[in-house]
């Protein structure tokens, strides 16, 4: 695209130069020979054509061109190798796709970790419960009422079991992080999807127009895409910044 514009500009200049040379030869011919009305018309046509070509070449110089995600003038682009500026929609799609994949990967990792933690939690919980019952059974069956050291030991065992149960209860609050993180990741994935779709729509619209879009129009289009994506995901499902207990309200 840049290559084409660059060539077109110089072709305009060269053709304008040739027309000018032709016009000069005709003026010389006019003075050297008898003038005819056709000669005069031909000279004016050549000069007119020359001016049109010059205006075209100049106007092409600073026209902004939208390139996938960035806007540059021809002047800037000419300093770049052609391959670095011929970015297509496919690249943007692939980029959005890779972001989505990474978010999915994060969600899978969190989900896997939570599943394992819950399994461990359930196992520890069952062991604690079994230990608790065992201590109670020993206390009833084996400890003589007057054997103070054994009773003291069993009481300490019981206290330890209670502490483990308290810690497990605290873990119930922390283990809910999986749900919060998953909801947040889903929300982020939806935002990325919406932004991608909105940008694609803007891109399709700008490509379907016959004239090039101005910088302001492109900025406006991107802003519109961001606003549309934000609007569709306005409600953030998770606002918690930590794993402290949430508020409780009875109506």
């Amino acid at each position: 695209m840049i290559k084409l514009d660059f060539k077109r500009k110089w072709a305009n200049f060269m053709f304008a130069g040739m027309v000018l040379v032709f016009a000069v030869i005709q003026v010389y011919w006019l003075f050297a020979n008898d003038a005819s009305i056709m000669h005069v018309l031909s000279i004016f046509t050549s000069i007119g054509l020359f001016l049109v070509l010059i205006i075209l070449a100049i106007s092409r110089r600073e026209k902004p061109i939208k390139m996938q995600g960035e806007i540059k003038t021809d002047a800037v682009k000419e300093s770049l190798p052609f391959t670095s500026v011929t970015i297509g929609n496919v690249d943007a799609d692939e980029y959005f796709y890779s972001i989505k994949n990474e978010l999915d990967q994060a969600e899978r990792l969190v989900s896997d970790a939570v599943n394992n933690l819950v399994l461990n939690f359930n196992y520890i919980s069952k062991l604690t419960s079994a230990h608790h019952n065992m201590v109670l059974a020993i206390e009833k069956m084996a400890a003589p009422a007057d054997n103070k050291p054994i009773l003291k030991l069993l009481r300490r065992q019981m206290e330890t079991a209670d502490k483990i149960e308290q810690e497990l209860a605290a873990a119930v609050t922390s283990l809910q992080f999986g749900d919060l993180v998953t909801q947040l990741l889903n929300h982020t994935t939806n935002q990325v999807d919406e932004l991608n779709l909105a940008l694609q729509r803007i891109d399709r619209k700008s490509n379907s127009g016959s004239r090039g879009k101005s910088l302001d129009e492109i900025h406006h289009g991107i802003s519109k895409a961001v606003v549309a994506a934000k609007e569709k995901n306005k409600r953030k499902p998770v606002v918690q910044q930590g794993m402290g207990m949430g508020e409780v309200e009875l109506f």
Partner: protein
Amino acid sequence: MTKTILAVDDSASMRQMVAFTLKGAGYEVIEAVDGQDALDKANHYKVNLVLTDINMPRMDGLKLLEMLRQLADYKSIPILMLTTESSNDIKAQGKAAGATGWLVKPFDPKRLLEVVHKVIG
């Protein structure tokens, strides 16, 4: 007589944490994976309390709340919302639809049990 609680959440770990807490206190817990599943189960079981999340696939918690309140058996059954959502707008929607209370995640097991005891004894 053991009281039955319908716990609705699309997150398996959340359902397990809720069930762990409530079963530990002697309640019977029926789990549902979304609003639609909960509605089906609500029609099959006699439930004393519904504890539901909001953001779920197929049918969300607010829709479930509306649907349950239309059923004769659930007009006066307590329905608690257990959700990450805490904005006043959505709370007002829940209240208007007939929610009994609002608990923001993450819940504390002790506090959850206090609320449950308070609403169903």
